[in-house]
């Protein structure tokens, strides 16, 4: 590999890194909404605890029947002896 091609490669890497940083920052700054854009997010179905009864029943069933628990919330104590 001669000097010119290695310089070009270095330049390409620099451009690549720069583009990566720019795109990453752009992506991050694009995340989120302004306060007046929360019309859909404010719907109850968009909250992470919109069906707490179902979630609690399911946690109890799966905790009793499988070896895993928690993740979404605390895994907690309990028996599960059945």
């Amino acid at each position, binding site marked *: 590999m001669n000097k010119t091609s290695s310089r070009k490669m270095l330049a390409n890497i620099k451009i690549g890194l720069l583009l990566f940083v720019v795109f990453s920052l752009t992506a991050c700054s694009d995340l989120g909404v302004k306060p007046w854009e929360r019309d859909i997010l404010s719907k109850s179905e968009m909250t992470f605890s919109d*069906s707490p009864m179902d979630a609690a029943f399911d946690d109890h069933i799966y905790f009793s029947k499988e070896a895993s628990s928690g993740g979404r919330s605390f895994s907690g104590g309990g*028996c599960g002896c059945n």
Partner: protein
Amino acid sequence: MQLDKKSNVYNLIALASCSLLGVANPALAADDITEDWKVDTAVLYYNETDRVSAVESAVSISKEFSGDKILSGKLTIDSLSGSSHNGASINENAQTFTSPSGEEQYVVEAGDVPLDPNFEDDRTSFNVQMSQPLSRLVNVEYGAAYSTELDYTSMSLNASLTRDFNQRNTTLSAGIAVAQDEINPHDGLPELYSLMSDNTKTSADTKNTVDLLLGLTQVINRNTIMQFNYGIGSSTGYQNDPYKIVSIISDATGAPLDYLFESRPDSRIKHSLYWQTKHHLERDMVDVSVRLMSDDWGINSQTLDLRYRWNLSETQYLEPHVRYYNQSAADFYQYEVSNEGLSAVQLAAQYQRDGTDVSADYRLGELNATTVGLKWGASLFKNHQLTTRLELYQQSGNSDVADLDAMIFQVGYGLKF
């Protein structure tokens, strides 16, 4: 001056957007109305084919006070009965078992899954939770829970802090929960490494659990929100299921010589990663979550959960649901153990001397499970919500004892006032 003009235009656009959205979206207007009291009730019927049936009822009440403080309490009562796998392997000979109390015997026919037909339990649990802001962006939540069964008592405390960042688009949370359980079967716990034929009992034992949960919630855009959680849980103390036994099979005949009560390690550390995303499609909504769990017992599991909320109208929706679960076996899981040329008593003594852990509980073996369900929800009147769901749950593993089919049916009614 120019800055002022810009700022005014900015405010006008914001105001116009809010007004337009408010008019265009009645659902938003409804959601904006804060009601002080919220009551949720539900009844669940759970039925396994040829095994356990359960009825579980719950009522939850919450009240919002001034200063955005919310106090809530929940009472759950459930009752279970039926047949439960006792841990023994299927054998070509008929098998006779003694119930955990040592008072009754039951026979399992050759080739059948060994099920203890006398399983019965009632559970009552109560929890109270308080949520309140500490400052404009910081919220604290704390609570306590208590549950009692015929043979089990659990008490727990929890607390978590959340803080909003980035115009409330990012929320970080950290929480801790501690639980202390007492296992106290009516007739005592089986002595460690004892045989079913011994029927030797010991007194109650305890288990302590500490859970830490770190969370990040991020609004992605107007339609999408994500949540990431990392959890670590440590439990120490009595981890056994006192009703589960392990078949000791004769090398020579293939028949069971006796049954050893299971012995699990006395500590367990679990790590979990959880990711959930909700994406609104303007009318419908997709909810997907993945959980990865790993523990020092050698169990690794993956859970995939997918829901599609099909909003039929402003007041009704249908929600199909699919869940898939897969786990690897614990290091000490064995379907049955060989007598290695020893008598059952000698083998039990050897296990005790070496501190060998062994369990034949199929729930610690390789397992696949699938849930398929459908939920229907409707707003009958303003702030009254009726829901019902029917789900089918199916398990399979590396032996017939893990084959299980269950039906889940639930009706719920909630109101705000």
